[in-house]
């Protein structure tokens, strides 16, 4: 069984966002890039699935040379091979999904993992788009997964609870925090990852449907009132919430 996991390489969540000179993207100077946090759950689940069902795990990322760092991390955790789909232009989720779907087809992977969302553009749709382009079933925002033969039972997080979803292979799963505890790469894994070659190819071309007109900072919030420093301020707080803000 071939298992694929798609990872994105994104600014660390501690990043303070500055708008770049093009006015349409962030200023990358001084920004630390990491493997997308949700993708770590995807990598872990791919490895666990391989341990259960056998087969091999290929990790795929679309972007530039810099993405190799995230691919190496996945290799160090235990992925068998890695593919970089090279493209230095910005793509929308749909255009990313088209290139990924193409490569997943090449690889013949029947179980595919994504993180449920990238913490840069926050669209939370690349996994679903890729699945639909491939004609695969999918379950998104998954916190529990069982694969038994051809049958897939996944629990996905929804508002105020979980849905238990039943479907069949081939399938795309997008991973939510809580699905597993991602393993740390062992020293042996890190050394082995350094020796593995990352296959590089040009990403399949695709048009963007989303045109970014401008990026802007949210309006700065005016610091509010400090009402007091102990419990005696509470009656005034409640009065303000009722009479000024009118929210309770």
């Amino acid at each position, binding site marked *: 069984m071939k298992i694929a996991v798609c990872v994105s390489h994104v600014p660390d969540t501690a990043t303070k966002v500055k708008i770049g000179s093009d006015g349409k993207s962030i200023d990358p100077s001084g920004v630390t890039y990491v493997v997308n946090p949700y993708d770590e759950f995807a990598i872990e689940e791919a490895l666990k699935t391989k341990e259960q069902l056998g087969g091999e795990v290929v990790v795929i990322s679309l972007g530039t040379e810099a993405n190799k760092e995230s691919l190496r991390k996945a290799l160090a955790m235990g992925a068998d091979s890695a593919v970089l789909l090279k493209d230095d232009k910005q793509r929308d989720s749909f255009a990313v999904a088209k290139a990924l779907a193409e490569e997943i087809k090449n690889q013949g992977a029947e179980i595919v993992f994504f993180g449920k969302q990238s913490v840069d553009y926050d669209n*939370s749709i690349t996994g679903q788009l890729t699945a639909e382009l491939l004609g695969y*079933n999918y379950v998104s925002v998954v916190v529990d997964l069982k694969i038994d033969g051809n049958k897939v039972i996944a629990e996905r997080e929804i508002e105020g609870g979980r849905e*238990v979803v039943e479907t069949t292979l081939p399938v795309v799963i997008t991973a939510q925090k*809580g699905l597993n505890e991602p393993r740390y790469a062992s020293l042996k894994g890190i050394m082995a990852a350094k020796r593995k070659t990352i296959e590089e190819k040009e990403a399949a071309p695709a048009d963007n449907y989303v045109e970014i*007109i401008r990026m802007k900072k*949210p309006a700065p919030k005016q610091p509010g009132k*400090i009402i007091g420093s102990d419990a005696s301020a*509470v009656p005034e707080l*409640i009065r303000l919430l009722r009479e000024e803000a009118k929210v309770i």
Partner: protein
Amino acid sequence: MANKILAVLEQRDGKLKKISFEVARAASDIAQKLNAGVEAVVIGNEVEGIENVGGYGVEKVTHYKHADLHNYSSSAYGDIIAEHVNNSGNDIIFFGNTAMGKDLAPKVAVKLNAGIAMDCTAFEIEDGELIATRPVYAGKALIDVKLTSGKKIFTLRPNVFNPGEPSGAKAEVEVKEVANPNLSVRVVELKKSEGKLDVAEASIIVSGGRGMKGPENFHLVEELADLLGAAVGASRAVVDAGWRPHSEQVGQTGKTVSPNLYIALGISGAIQHLAGMRSSKYIVAVNKDPDAPIFQVADYGITGDVFEVVPAMIEEIKKLKEG
């Protein structure tokens, strides 16, 4: 130029969710500005009160009905919506940015070869084109986007588009029985967290952070939330420590929220947390440390001990309720 906008409504357990009215109102407001028509669809089995969507400016709702559609199925719902759009000629489609909308909208996008912009918080019309504003980097920045595809899909962040008071008008409801829905992906069971509101949907959130000192003290957060009809939220630190479930986490690796009122108790305000809640309409912070970053975004702050202030808040609100 838009001809006809489609609002995709959402039901759970046969009742329309609040987001349905928000999507209906936003769709009808935008339709008016674009001089376009507007209609809605809802998929389910028995669904109560569909005609009430008329009060939010949508005159016509098509109800796709089958017993097996009571629960969500991406495969069935996706087929139905794509077919509806192809028959009806809608060129703009709105979903709620909910668990269902986020799962379903991309499927429909592929079927229609439509561009898609998720989690929109505002719309403008520039030169006759619909421009959507959406937060990126969990709200640390915003982008204005337009879709260049023929068909365009937008999902709307819950709690942002005020549906206003319904006018009392009733929508015309056409029921279409669905034959053999495609159930290749289907929900076989719904596990509800008993009586708990979700932070993504709540209009008030009471969140606790490391300043609560331990999971055993979260009963204070829960009690205040109960009294206010609020959802309980949590900072990443307390989720990572295992004090609270991840479903309650607010911030960049949790949920991005925009309630009317956000009460932060013992939360210092890491950049990831602030990004996830700064668009709340009103923010209250209680924290011992007057230099905590949370006070930079708070409308009202008390620089005191949560273990003194929160019980006082509970008492004060109880007094109010007893009136």
